[in-house]
């Protein structure tokens, strides 16, 4: 059965989460000054910070979202891996060292270093909050997905569990404990994904996931009645009667001589053998009538080669429309430009002592993150053929893949995924709390605070953000978390990157230009997303054809728009003093 809890899994999970909270509480004593709370005293070792970058960045979207997308849609999920890593090249070569040299606690500090403008602080603080909230949504949705199979709890309980744990982490200790939580999580995630990949290659590929008998190609129907009761194939759902797990090999290549399993394969052999096999994938159709909402899952056996090239998820790529292609290009541009504009990544540059340490920690981060993204390909394809997938939830592919090996591994992977969410959410709430306390309250509103008060306001902001994140996590249940995080990248890249890059490379940049670029970039990308076909269909429940925007991902238009607005407004405003001299 898909959602059966085991005491061992619950025990391992509880031990993991308790360990992380204990560490956080213990380290909390070290971060009581503002410098300690927001920037861990600037004394984190670059190697630790580098792995913490990986912990910060490898969010639920990377682990749960990408694995799920590869498992259900094939190669297109891997395009997210490629785009997410490419963004780090911008961070390292263009942003890392200057941002360290310019700032103190927050991203607004860096952008405002030359101007001391309340307008810049206000615009950047709001953009930080908007990006952080959009990035928080997928993390919370991921947390909700995890607790259902692991603990047998409903989605909302997982969201609340993460919300409370993270608010506790951030409110007790700030950046010191956040850094260590991310370091531990980053190390464990990469290590155990490596272990899982070795197990996948060791197991090789098996027809019908090693089960005896022919492939079961009967469609499955899940009905949610108006009174909330769930039926499977017309009968009430129970432990004994649930949806069958899916995702199997249909036929192996002829070179294996009709065998039902390949046995262990090397990394390249695995990919080549899969390419010549057939797989059974499941499509989903939904319709609603007076008896409830019915989801019909229908199996199709098809050549795996179709899933190992672009076009499985991004329909525009496989001979699709121009709008479809532009949508894809826009997403890939946003992923490339977005990483170096994410506030929770940028603040990590303030936890190391100098620009050289910032550079070295970025290289460590890229190496760990790059290794992880290579592994996502094997995890996703391993899940696709594991016979363990839940057809209703793409986000659970990686943990359910682990369950196909052992219950203990399932518990470990689920606990790591949960700590993954904890780590990333902690970083996001830190960034948001800094934006509120340091940028908005202190610098924009001009409230003079003692060191102790700054920390208290930051903690209060962290609690409020935690509550907002929990509410949104419950609201967006059922979305693929990789898809959701694309929105955050679009907004971050459109609002923040033009201002950051031009400030560093164009002396004529003015404060009016920066304020205009951040405001227009943020408003345009946010407005575009709210009026896009994806949002119409998936959030408002309206036909996508009614949406006014020609494609759903805004970056292709709104990132250049941010640059254009900055240049035009800067040229129309008085040049900065340094240029006039």
């Amino acid at each position, binding site marked *: 059965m898909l959602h059966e809890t085991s005491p061992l899994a619950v025990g391992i999970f509880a031990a993991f989460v308790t360990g992380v909270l204990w560490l956080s509480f213990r380290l909390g004593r070290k971060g009581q000054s503002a410098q300690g709370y927001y920037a861990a005293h600037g004394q984190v070792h670059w190697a630790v910070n580098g792995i913490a970058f990986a912990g910060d960045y490898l969010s639920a979207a990377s682990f749960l979202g990408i694995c799920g997308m590869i498992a259900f849609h094939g190669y297109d999920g891997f395009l997210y891996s490629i785009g997410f*890593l490419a963004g780090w090249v911008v961070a*390292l*070569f*263009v942003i890392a060292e200057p941002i360290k040299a310019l700032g103190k606690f927050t991203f607004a500090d860096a952008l405002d270093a030359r101007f001391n403008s309340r307008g810049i602080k206000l615009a950047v603080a709001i953009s930080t909050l908007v990006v952080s909230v959009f990035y928080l949504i997928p993390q919370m949705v991921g947390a909700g997905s995890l607790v259902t199979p692991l603990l047998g709890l409903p989605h909302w309980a997982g969201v609340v569990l993460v919300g409370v744990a993270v608010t506790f982490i951030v409110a007790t200790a700030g950046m010191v404990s956040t850094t260590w939580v991310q370091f531990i999580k980053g190390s464990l995630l990469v290590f155990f994904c490596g272990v899982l990949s070795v197990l996948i290659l060791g197991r090789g590929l098996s027809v019908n996931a090693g089960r005896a008998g022919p492939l079961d190609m009967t469609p499955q129907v899940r009905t949610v009645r108006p009174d909330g009761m769930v039926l499977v194939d017309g009968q009430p759902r129970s432990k004994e009667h649930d949806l069958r797990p899916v995702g199997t090999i249909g036929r192996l290549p002829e070179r294996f001589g009709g065998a039902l399993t390949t046995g262990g394969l090397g990394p390249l052999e695995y990919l*080549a053998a899969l390419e010549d096999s057939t797989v059974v994938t499941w499509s989903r159709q939904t319709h609603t009538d007076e008896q409830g909402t019915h989801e019909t899952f229908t199996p199709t056996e098809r050549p795996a080669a179709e899933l190992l*090239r672009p076009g499985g998820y991004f329909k525009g*790529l496989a001979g699709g429309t121009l709008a479809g292609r532009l949508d894809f290009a826009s997403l890939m541009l946003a992923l490339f430009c977005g990483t170096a504009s994410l506030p929770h990544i940028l603040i990590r540059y303030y936890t190391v002592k100098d620009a050289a340490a910032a550079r070295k920690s*970025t290289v460590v981060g890229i190496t760990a993150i790059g290794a992880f*993204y290579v592994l996502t390909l094997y995890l996703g394809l391993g899940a696709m053929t594991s016979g363990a997938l839940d057809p209703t939830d793409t986000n659970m592919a990686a943990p359910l893949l682990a369950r196909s090996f052992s219950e203990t591994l399932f518990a470990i992977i689920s606990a790591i995924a949960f700590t993954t969410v904890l780590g990333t959410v902690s970083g996001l709430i830190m960034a948001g709390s800094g934006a509120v306390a340091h940028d908005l309250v202190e610098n924009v509103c001009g409230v003079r605070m003692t060191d102790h008060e700054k920390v208290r306001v930051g903690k209060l902001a962290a609690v409020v953000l935690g509550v907002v994140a929990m509410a949104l996590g419950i609201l967006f249940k059922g979305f693929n978390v990789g898809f959701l995080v694309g929105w955050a990248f679009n907004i971050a890249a459109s609002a923040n990157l033009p201002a950051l890059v031009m400030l560093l490379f164009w002396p004529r940049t003015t404060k009016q230009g920066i304020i205009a670029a951040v405001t227009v970039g943020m408003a345009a990308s946010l407005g575009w997303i709210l009026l896009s076909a994806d949002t119409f269909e998936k959030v408002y429940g309206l036909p996508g054809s009614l949406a006014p925007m020609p494609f759903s991902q805004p970056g292709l238009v709104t990132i250049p728009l941010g640059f254009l607005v900055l240049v035009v407004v800067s040229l129309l405003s008085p040049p900065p003093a340094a240029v006039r001299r």
Partner: protein
Amino acid sequence: MTMEGESHKPGTVPPASRLGLALFGVYVLLYGGFMTLVLMRPDLMAVRPFGGVNLAIASGLGLIVAAVALSLVYMLARAGR
């Protein structure tokens, strides 16, 4: 870009960062070339020139390895500064 011990003059790019920008340019070409292929010639992505692995997977893995390799080159070239 500012190095430790140097003063940062806003809006300027000191010579030390030229290497970073050059490596960035190399990666932009690789990433741009890959995306152009995916967008314009997705059919080419199905060819299998690398031991049975198709071009889509080989080039995707190659881009990830290239990002890590370029970052290591950058770190080694600037070690000790």
